């Protein structure tokens, strides 16, 4: 319907009633979206159909509310008259009656023990039952992450803070921003979808999920069981950074580490570049010292080895000398000349063969006789 014909000049251009109410509904729904509204319950009525009708009021105004069965059946008990509650819903126009009202999707009581707390406790108990809150589930964060995913609003202050801190401390890490709606309508689905995408990011070391500070209603998506389960299912260590320190959300409880703010999360997940540089310099000094000591040690060993070598060779030479003298003496004792000196003689034929048996020496045989100081020609006596 065009705005051009909004103000007809004459009765002929008049709008029909349903056109007006339809236009009003579209304008209001489009203008507000889904919001949280806080107020006191007044004139609460539950119909047998399961639908709830009531008013929300403050000192100055009242807002008609309807909560249909599909949504009201999830609430533990109807709110008390006059109770302060939070309603999450869509302002709209009920065209049948031309009535402006809030279609409530979720209702939380602020009273002690109210639905707000009950819903949280119930979700918490479910997570606990499935072991998702066990301390043993907490994974250690990598010391030097090279790829970090950040699940948050792509144009929020949280993302700016995280990126700034990471750039200052550890620019080596690549930051992958996985945008998500973090409050209001669609936050639950969007956060779950964004968290589910993390397992398809190659080489991911770590994830940060969060948003800047806000009211309890603003942070509510992080208290939903389904979102907490999606955080628990992230395959890499995950740090939650939701709002202020005072509020601990379900996501904080299932994350591997809870940081009070997005900046604190960024500080916690990477080392400081300056500190690591100092550590490197120290390693350099230590390796130089190590090598120096190692060289000195080798030097000393070489000197020791050389001393030992000369000592060993000296001993060897001495030992060999004595053995040589001994062998010389033995050689001398065995020398045939020494035998001749004692008065023996050797008989040999002209060819120099030794004639040592009687058969070698028949009568008339000429031979040479070697005695102590020379050779003597000789002949065997007797008839030849």
């Amino acid at each position, binding site marked *: 319907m065009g705005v051009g014909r909004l103000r007809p000049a004459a009765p002929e251009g008049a709008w029909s009633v349903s056109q007006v109410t339809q236009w009003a509904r579209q304008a209001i729904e489009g203008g507000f979206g889904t919001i949280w509204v806080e107020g006191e319950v007044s004139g609460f009525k539950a119909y047998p159909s399961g639908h709830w009708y009531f008013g929300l009021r403050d000192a100055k105004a009242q807002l008609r509310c309807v909560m249909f069965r599909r949504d009201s059946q999830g609430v533990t008990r109807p709110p008390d008259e006059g109770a302060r509650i939070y309603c999450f819903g869509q302002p709209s126009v009920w065209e049948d009656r031309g009535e402006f009202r809030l279609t409530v999707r979720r209702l939380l009581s602020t009273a002690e023990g109210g639905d707000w707390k009950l819903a949280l406790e119930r979700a918490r108990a479910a997570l606990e039952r499935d072991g998702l809150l066990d301390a043993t589930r907490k994974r250690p964060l*990598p*010391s*030097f992450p*090279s*790829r970090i995913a950040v699940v948050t609003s*792509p144009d929020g202050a949280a993302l700016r803070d995280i*990126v700034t801190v*990471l*750039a200052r401390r550890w*620019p*080596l*890490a*690549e*930051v*992958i*921003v*996985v*945008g*998500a*709606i973090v409050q209001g309508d*669609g936050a639950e*689905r*969007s956060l779950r*979808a*964004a968290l589910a*995408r993390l397992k398809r990011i*190659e*080489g991911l070391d770590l994830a940060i999920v969060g948003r800047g500070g806000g009211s309890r209603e603003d942070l509510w998506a992080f208290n939903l069981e389904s979102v907490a389960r999606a955080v628990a299912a992230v395959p890499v260590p995950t740090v939650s950074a939701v709002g202020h320190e005072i509020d601990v959300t379900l996501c904080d409880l299932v994350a591997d580490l809870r940081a009070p703010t997005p900046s604190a999360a960024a500080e916690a997940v990477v080392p400081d*570049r300056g500190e*690591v*540089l100092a*550590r*490197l310099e120290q*390693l*350099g000094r*230590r*390796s*130089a*010292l*190590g*090598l120096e*000591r*190692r*060289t000195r*040690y*080798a030097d000393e060993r070489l000197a020791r080895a050389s001393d030992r070598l000369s000592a060993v060779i000296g001993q060897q030479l001495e030992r060999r000398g004595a053995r040589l003298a001994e062998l010389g003496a033995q050689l001398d004792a065995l020398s045939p000349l020494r035998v001749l000196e004692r008065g023996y003689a050797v008989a040999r034929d002209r060819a120099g063969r030794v004639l040592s048996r009687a058969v070698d020496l028949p009568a008339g045989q000429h031979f040479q006789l070697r005695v102590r100081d020379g050779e003597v020609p000789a002949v065997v006596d007797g008839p030849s």
Partner: protein
Amino acid sequence: MSETIRFGEELERLEGIVRELEANDADLDRALTLFEEGVERLRRARALLTEAEQKVKELGSAPVD
């Protein structure tokens, strides 16, 4: 896909080299080789730290409804 810098592994290897150099049982040849490797790794790690520039990639909003 950008080059993935496994800085932690680099640092761990460097620390291993220094520990081995500080122990007295490696022979001199081994010590010299280790020292050369250490110097080279140190230079690379230092360059990574001083020359790194942050990379930010946006995946965009996850689809809703």
